């Protein structure tokens, strides 16, 4: 079944009928969700979708092209502010401001990509990190952007369809997410995507094959920033109020953690990682109310630690997951999935 007979079979999105059926079922489920769950769950799903877009974008850069970025919160902020400012200050409609957010972020990605051509490892990490910090600092000191006070985001609207409720926001966010996911899947079946992968595996070999490293590396930064910028715009509209405090280094680290946990070089993995970490971040803060673990943790806290410090366990758990993934399953959740798939293929033998 895995054998590809010709090129066109290789670039097909759905490799078999089973995959096709599963995809359609998943899409139907996505459509059905708002009819069954409440506003709160819908908001969490929206967050997951937004984070998935960032994770996919970051994965294109880190997982597929082999670069490092600790500054994606910067692109996220650029996207968020671009879309909101275009709408509030220039009065542009959402359909213009939203893609503009992606393109402006991509422009910055391209600029950041240029110095990073010569950098690697910790040098690249600190350069991107500095970029991320500089962006928020500059935004928060510009009166035009609302400064530290923040700025109010108008509701999203497409040709008269105003997304002022949870389900309507969900509709726009999920549609964008699905489209961007498919685009990413498609990307790696084209020349560009394959060039990214070649650069990751060996820069020199890629260059020898005639891949223009300079162009494709900066392009990878730009594509990654494009995704992140769009996600930032969606985040702005779903938060309704923008302020720079939320785009910090911790956010960049969280994005990186998502793709590590989900699986490097895997679109599905990006989504799974984003889903897991977003869910944990929301839910872990009430761990003391969990049935069995809660009282146990409270007991441990009052004996060896402090009770009021217990919520800090969030960062311990997320840090632990990050380390465990790198040590035991470098391919992340996606790796676990692949192994289970292989196991079932042989089943029951």
């Amino acid at each position, binding site marked *: 079944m895995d054998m590809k007979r010709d090129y066109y079979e290789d670039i097909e999105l759905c490799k078999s009928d089973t995959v096709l059926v599963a995809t359609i079922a998943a899409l139907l489920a996505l459509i059905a969700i708002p009819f*069954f769950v409440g*506003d709160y769950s819908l908001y969490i799903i929206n967050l997951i979708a937004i984070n998935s877009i960032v994770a996919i974008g970051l994965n294109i850069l880190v997982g597929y092209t082999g670069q490092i970025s600790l500054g994606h919160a910067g692109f996220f902020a650029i996207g968020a502010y671009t879309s909101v400012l275009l709408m509030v200050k220039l009065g542009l409609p959402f359909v213009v401001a939203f893609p503009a957010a992606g393109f402006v972020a991509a422009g910055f990605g391209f600029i950041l990509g240029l110095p990073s051509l010569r950098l690697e490892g910790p040098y690249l990490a600190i350069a991107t990190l500095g970029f991320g910090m500089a962006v928020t600092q500059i935004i928060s*000191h510009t009166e035009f952007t609302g400064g530290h006070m923040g700025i109010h985001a108008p509701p999203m609207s497409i040709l008269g369809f105003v997304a002022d409720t949870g389900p309507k926001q969900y509709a726009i966010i999920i549609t964008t997410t699905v489209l961007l996911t498919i685009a990413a899947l498609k990307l790696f079946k084209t020349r560009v995507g394959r060039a990214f992968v070649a650069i990751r595996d060996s820069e020199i070999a890629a260059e020898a094959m005639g891949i223009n490293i300079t162009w494709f590396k900066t392009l990878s930064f730009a594509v990654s920033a494009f995704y992140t910028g769009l996600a930032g715009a969606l*985040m702005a509209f779903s938060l309704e*109020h923008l302020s720079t405090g939320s785009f910090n280094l*911790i956010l960049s680290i969280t994005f990186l953690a998502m793709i590590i946990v989900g699986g490097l070089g895997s679109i599905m993995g990006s989504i799974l990682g984003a889903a897991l970490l977003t869910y944990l971040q929301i839910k872990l803060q009430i761990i003391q109310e969990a049935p069995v673990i809660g009282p146990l943790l409270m007991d441990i806290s009052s004996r060896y630690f402090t009770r009021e410090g217990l919520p800090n366990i969030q960062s311990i758990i997320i840090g632990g997951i990050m380390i465990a993934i790198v040590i035991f399953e470098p391919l992340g959740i996606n790796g676990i999935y692949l192994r289970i798939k292989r196991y079932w293929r042989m089943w029951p033998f």
Partner: protein
Amino acid sequence: MKRLLLCVFAILLCIIVVIPVYSEDKVRGVTDTEIKIGQWGPQTGPAALWGAVARGTGVYFDLVNSEGGIAGRKIKYYLRDDGYQPAKTKAIGKEFIDDIGVFTVVGGVGTSTGMAVRDSLMENEIVWVGPLTGSDNWTEPLQKYLFAIYPKYTDEAYLLTEYTAEKLGKKKIAFFYQNDDYGKEGLKGAQKWAKKAGVKLVAEVPVEVTDTDLKSHALKMKQSGADAVIMWVLPKHAAIILGTSKAAGFQPQWVACSTLSDSAMMYNITKGLWEGVIFGNFLDMDNPLIKKYKAAQEKFAPNEKYTGVFFLAGFMFAEPMVEGLKRAGKDLNTQTFVKALETIRNWNDWLGHDCTFTPTDHQGMKSIFVSKCGPKGEPVRLSDWITFTDDKK
């Protein structure tokens, strides 16, 4: 075989999707025996220091419940940690509205976090009493379901600058502020007074939240020749700037805003430098109620390490709410609660001063008083309550 498995998975998926369907009750969050009240407070992250407020509120509600509750109803309190991240606060807001279904929300630290949920709380007609910052955003423009208690930073800065200039007789006043909404609102108030009095602040020095090395800040203020500096910063920065300035040979009269009003704690972390600092207060530590509240803390939260001003502020910011709930009585819903809150006039049976809500003004408290830190870190009261009256606007 695989088809079968696929079917099983599909069915499971459907069940998972269908299960969480919630039913709505009549008045959200109120039954004959219970009132659900929520609060978010940063227990982790950069603002975790202020997490004590939300824990204090919890103890206060325990106290109210142990005294028989309100009109036969007990308070059920939901404390959530937002880590000072607006995205999380928003999720908590949705959880309060949609998942738990709280009747009302109390407190909540942070302006940007609060702004992320303000509109959705208002749209869902959830009363929110006493956000824990003195931001202008709570009452301008008037929100029907939002009742602010914390004296506005702009008003407080106005009063403190006025006090520094007129009562302390300082001529050259510098302003040292955190470069965000909190510090800038303070600066705005000070500038307003300066404009009215026809003088200029000799220096306006911003500090970033992440800064640790404040040498150049101290030198800037020293250069300006200020004889008094008003601080609108975090405790950490207040401590660092006092030490650094002393090392740089710059010792003006320090004046601190009410977020630094826990003089015992400040005395401790500055290793004694806080002595002689003058600061604004919103919470009256000499109030007889304090004794009762401390006893409650020992009973309900004996492990609490920090029981200073901000732990007690958790009590204070819930007091007008409980008073409102009491006044609304047995027939409790959002409209009766709002009406009851708006009957509170010059109410003084609490840790603050002159709580007043009217249908056109939801800023409950407009007064501060000024204290000085004594030689052992104890506050020495210098003035009576000073109110920001309308003629100062």
